[in-house]
């Protein structure tokens, strides 16, 4: 199941390379987000014996969403552990293992189920290094799909970026594309602190270009640094996870109308890279934040508050604006669900409103 190798021609065609050209290093390959996370975990499992994965269905089922496919076959029962349906219990076990010197990756089948274990994430993992006066680190990764999926309704669609992003002692990352996914999971595993990795189920199957850099076993994306996905001059559009793609789509549409959006992919929720956002706002004078989660007390709210407090405020020509999920529990019917998450048209509308167009 190796991804297709080749090059993207200038007319958009993907020309596949024959595999006997052993001296040829492809400039890039296509890798899905799922494969990227799988690769990242595989490389870190190989690199450090103290790393192990536990969670529901991660081993013999190959992962509920197949993210851990092949890992149990390769590493066996000791390193890839199927747990009973006991989130609070196995999250606590994972934290205890981290305290005793292992480097666990604790998978929540979705972050909705992490609510049952949230005490272990916050009180046992996040706060311990501080409470112990620096004696007891907790090198653990909590990962799994976060936020809205498709048709899974209210109890399975919540975004936890704001909840986890609220807590000192945690690091919280939210990858969008494959490079984000691989680089961030590797950084998270190597980090000596509790890191929450908020993946996105709808992104798992999406392929992206993987540079030769990203193909390396030591490719890391630093935690705490945002990435400017698209340069622009008229407005700063900040997002994380799947909505980053929607922002880029909106930017493409608006470009035809002469509006150039600077699209920032946060990559990390906490510690937030506000400096990159500020520098961009100083340049563009306008800000729109886009997230899948609910509006109240959310990621966008935090960005707006910080922009107000910092040097970028005086450069705003209009109030900062948020695009978010609708302030309702996620409904099931397609028309309702579609209108409960930020769509490209909602982003375009917000951008034009901010620019007073």
């Amino acid at each position: 199941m190796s991804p297709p190798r080749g090059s993207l021609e200038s007319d958009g065609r993907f020309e596949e390379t024959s595999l006997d050209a052993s001296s040829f290093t492809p400039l890039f390959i296509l890798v899905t987000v799922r494969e990227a996370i799988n690769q990242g975990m595989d490389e870190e499992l190989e690199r450090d014996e103290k790393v192990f994965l536990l969670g529901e269905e991660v081993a013999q089922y190959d992962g509920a969403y197949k993210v851990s496919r092949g890992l149990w076959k390769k590493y066996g029962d000791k390193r890839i552990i199927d747990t009973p349906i006991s989130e609070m219990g196995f999250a606590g076990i994972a934290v205890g293992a981290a305290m005793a010197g292992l480097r666990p990756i604790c998978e929540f089948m979705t972050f909705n189920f992490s609510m049952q274990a949230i005490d272990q994430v916050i009180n046992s993992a996040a706060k311990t290094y501080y409470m112990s006066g620096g004696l007891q680190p907790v090198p653990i990764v909590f990962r799994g799909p976060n936020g809205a999926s498709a048709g899974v309704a209210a109890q399975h669609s919540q975004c936890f970026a704001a909840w986890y992003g609220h807590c000192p002692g945690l690091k919280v990352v939210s990858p969008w594309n494959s490079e984000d996914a691989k680089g961030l999971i590797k950084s998270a595993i190597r980090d000596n602190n509790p890191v929450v990795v908020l993946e996105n189920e709808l992104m798992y199957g999406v392929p992206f270009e993987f540079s030769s850099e990203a193909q390396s076993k030591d490719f890391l994306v630093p935690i705490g640094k945002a990435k400017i996905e698209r340069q622009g001059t008229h407005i700063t559009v900040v997002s994380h996870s799947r909505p980053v793609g929607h922002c880029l789509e909106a930017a493409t549409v608006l470009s035809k109308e002469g509006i150039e959006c600077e699209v920032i992919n946060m990559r990390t929720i906490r510690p937030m890279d506000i400096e990159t956002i500020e520098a961009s706002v100083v340049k563009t004078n306008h800000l729109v934040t886009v997230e899948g989660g609910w509006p109240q007390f959310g990621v966008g709210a935090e960005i707006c508050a910080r922009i107000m407090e910092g040097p970028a405020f005086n450069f705003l020509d209009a109030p900062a604006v948020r695009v978010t999920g609708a302030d309702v529990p996620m409904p099931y019917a397609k028309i309702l669900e579609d209108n409960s998450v930020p769509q490209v048209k909602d982003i375009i509308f917000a951008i034009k409103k901010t620019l007073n167009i």
Partner: protein
Amino acid sequence: MEEKSWERQQASRVLVASRSFANDATFEIKKCDLHRLEEGPPVTTVLTREDGLRYYRMMQTVRRMELKADQLYKQKIIRGFCHLCDGQEACCVGLEAGINPTDHLITAYRAHGFTFTRGLSVREILAELTGRRGGCAKGKGGSMHMYAKNFYGGNGIVGAQVPLGAGIALACKYFGKDEVCLTLYGDGAANQGQIFEAYNMAALWKLPCIFICENNRYGMGTSVERAAASTDYYKRGDFIPGLRVDGMDILCVREATRFAAAYCRSGKGPILMELQTYRYHGHSMSDPGVSYRTREEIQEVRSKSDPIMLLKDRMVNSNLASVEELKEIDVEVRKEIEDAAQFATADPEPPLEELGHHIYSSDPPFEVRGANQWIKFKSIS
């Protein structure tokens, strides 16, 4: 450092006294109730003079340290939560006597005794209680968040420490170093769902975890009969073998612990111990402890089952020690506690500049926000 001078004194005492005292004595101990076990710990045990004196000193130190904490709390030098374990000394000292320093231990918030038996000094414990920079957690944790090598606290959320302990046991098995983890919880916590999740996984994966229910008959003000449909805590592990132990008799606790540790080390999986014990103080310093139990009950336990008294009587009656030398130990312990209290009272509070430290481990310094956007604290790992 206090240990070394104690050893010198001990050595000279042994030299002087070795002619008049027995080297060891055999004692009968209560048979443990068993659950899913064919055999239990032995019903007799040998106590050496050396061990006896050490246990006596340790229990007396815990006792006096807790009473000193009570005093400091009433003087408002200690604040917030303060859960004392006087009456339960045979548990922390007995458990430690049954394991190695390389084994692991985790407990809940009634943790001062364990913090001491796992190796920290009274000085750093009291200074942590008074919130000073010389405290074992630099004043950042307080009563419920003290850590030491192979001692994982000190945990404030009732029951959460039990899955943690099972996780530490998982690490023991993973590393293959023949170590076990003692995972403690109280009779109140015993009804937490996550404990049953931990039992299940520990048994499934044969983790070297000794689950220990320190049953002091009351979860805060709720007696065991009012909280648990089954008060046979040693059976609550269901498929996990269990034993019920007299937690006021340090020798009983020691033997049971040795038995349980051997069981775990042999790879058979987890085991459960219920220690029947009693706390003299209320749940915490804000609980006088007499609205839900009678003074007569407390007095009865004190006069008939006090763990320090039980050990003392045994040692004196078997000629392992004299009343005078035990009194000498009392005096030395009092002095140690006094000195520690002095330090804990005089040591300055942690510097304000360090408020933001220890958010993350192994990271470069960064800034932490204070009460408003202009107040910033530097955070060092």
